[in-house]
Each structure stands twice: as structure tokens, then as C-alpha cells.
């Protein structure tokens, strides 16, 4: 498979092979991320196509440091936007469970404090929290709340039981909540 730098160079050269190479290297990852959020084949494919279009329009002038992270951000953003637009009937129950867990972290914070925190500030605080964790815990947290993987899938990825993953996630949510309370105070 082509190196990220070479794929970005194809984008800069306005060579359409860039999209084919991107799809070959990261198509599966992006599709799975969209599927974890939308859980609908048609929506997933639309989202993936919108992602490739967005990447084509943004590179150049943007030169991403990590093409993988750049793609994940776009596909996640587009999928969440579409998810928000979807009616309650079409919503994915697995995704709802994951979101409720995440919401629980902020339940302990005062509503005023939460309003003070902007999305990017919250992300920066979570970023600091994640950098203090071990690689394993960070991986589990992000697979669950960034890539929205079901517990069983994460257990398979980590070669351990679902119970262990649930316990680790429970502890992580608790410590994240404590960390955010201290950050705001």
C-alpha cells in the first residue's frame, strides 16, 4: 500500500488516483466508523463519499500531518451530523448506549460549568486526561467513545473478556469525571 506522504502528494497534483489509494488504505476503517454511528448501509456509503469529496476539496491547501486522523475526523463529523438529523426511529441503539455512557461522565458537573466549557476546550481537557493514561486504557477508551465500537468488538481487539472492558470503561468514566471537575474548579 502507498505511503501517506505519497497519497497526499497525489492530492496536491490533483490526481484522481489519490481517492482510489485513500479508499484502498483507509476505506475499511472509515466505513466501519460510519457504520458504528449510522448502522445503515446507504447512509454509510453516502458519508464515505462525502468524506472523500471533503478531503479532495481540503487538500490542498491543507497538508495533514496524519492522513488517517484527518480522514477519521471528517468521517466522524459527517456521520454525527447525519446521525443528529436522522429521526429517532432510525437511530442506532448501540450508538445511543455509548453516547449515554459518555453523557454520564458530565452528569456530575454543574450545568453552569458545562456551559463555560466550549467543545474544543473540553476536547483539550480530555486530550490531557488521555495522555496520562496507559496505552491499553487509552486504546479502550477511544475505541469505545471515538470509534463507537461495541464492547464485544473491543474485547476481541484486546484479547480479553467483555467484563474486563466494561470494568475498565466504568473506572475510566469515573476518573474522567473527577479530572474534569478538578479542571473546571
Amino acid at each position, binding site marked *: 500500500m502507498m505511503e501517506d506522504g505519497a497519497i497526499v502528494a497525489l492530492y496536491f497534483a490533483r490526481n484522481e488516483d489519490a481517492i482510489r489509494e485513500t479508499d484502498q488504505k483507509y476505506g475499511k476503517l472509515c466505513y466501519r466508523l460510519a457504520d458504528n454511528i449510522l448502522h445503515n448501509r446507504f447512509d454509510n456509503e453516502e458519508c464515505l463519499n462525502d468524506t472523500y469529496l471533503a478531503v479532495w476539496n481540503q487538500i490542498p491547501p491543507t497538508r495533514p500531518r*496524519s492522513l*488517517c486522523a484527518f480522514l477519521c475526523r471528517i468521517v466522524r463529523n459527517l456521520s454525527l451530523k447525519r446521525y443528529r438529523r436522522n429521526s429517532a426511529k432510525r437511530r442506532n441503539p448501540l450508538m445511543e448506549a455509548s453516547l449515554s455512557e459518555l453523557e454520564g461522565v458530565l452528569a456530575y458537573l454543574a450545568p453552569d460549568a458545562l456551559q463555560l466549557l466550549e467543545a474544543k476546550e473540553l476536547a483539550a481537557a480530555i486530550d490531557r486526561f488521555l*495522555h496520562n493514561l496507559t496505552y491499553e486504557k487509552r*486504546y*479502550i477508551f477511544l475505541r469505545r467513545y*471515538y470509534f463507537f465500537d461495541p464492547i464485544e468488538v473491543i474485547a476481541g481487539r484486546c484479547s480479553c473478556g467483555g467484563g474486563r472492558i466494561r470494568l475498565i470503561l466504568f473506572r475510566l468514566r469515573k476518573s474522567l469525571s473527577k479530572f474534569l471537575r478538578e479542571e473546571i474548579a
Partner: protein
Amino acid sequence: MKVQIAESLTWIGEDLIEEASAESLNIHRGKRRAWRVIAIAAAIMLGMGLWVSTVFRSCGGPVSPEDETYRAEEILSDMRVEMSER
């Protein structure tokens, strides 16, 4: 509200996203598990060895060669005393 929280996570560092995009956790759990099994097996064998030696001692089983020599010398001196008395 729920989706807003999830959206804010989109802006975490690129290094973190790239690290988590790996197919599986890059830790040699099998190797670690094998070492744990070896350590437990060694501890069990050591415990059994200690238990067996304790049982042998209490039954008067094999003793150390030094003890054996001491007992032989004791028997010989007793025999010498008996002979001299006769």
C-alpha cells in the same frame, strides 16, 4: 446534548486518533500470560517440594548425610562403652 459531547471528542489530538485506529491492541498479552503460568507453576512446585520434605522428616525418612554420620558415631561409641564394661 449527547451528540454534542461526542462531537467535542472529534478535536482530540491526531496522535491519539492514529494510535487508536490500530486494528488490535499492540500488547503481547500471550507472552505475559505464559510468564504468569510459569511463575504460578514454579510456586506450586516449590510448595509441594517443601511439603514433601516436611512429611519425610516427620516420618523419619532420609536425613542429611551429616546426621547419618553423627548417628553412626554415636552407635559405635555406645558399642565401645559396652565392650569396655564387659
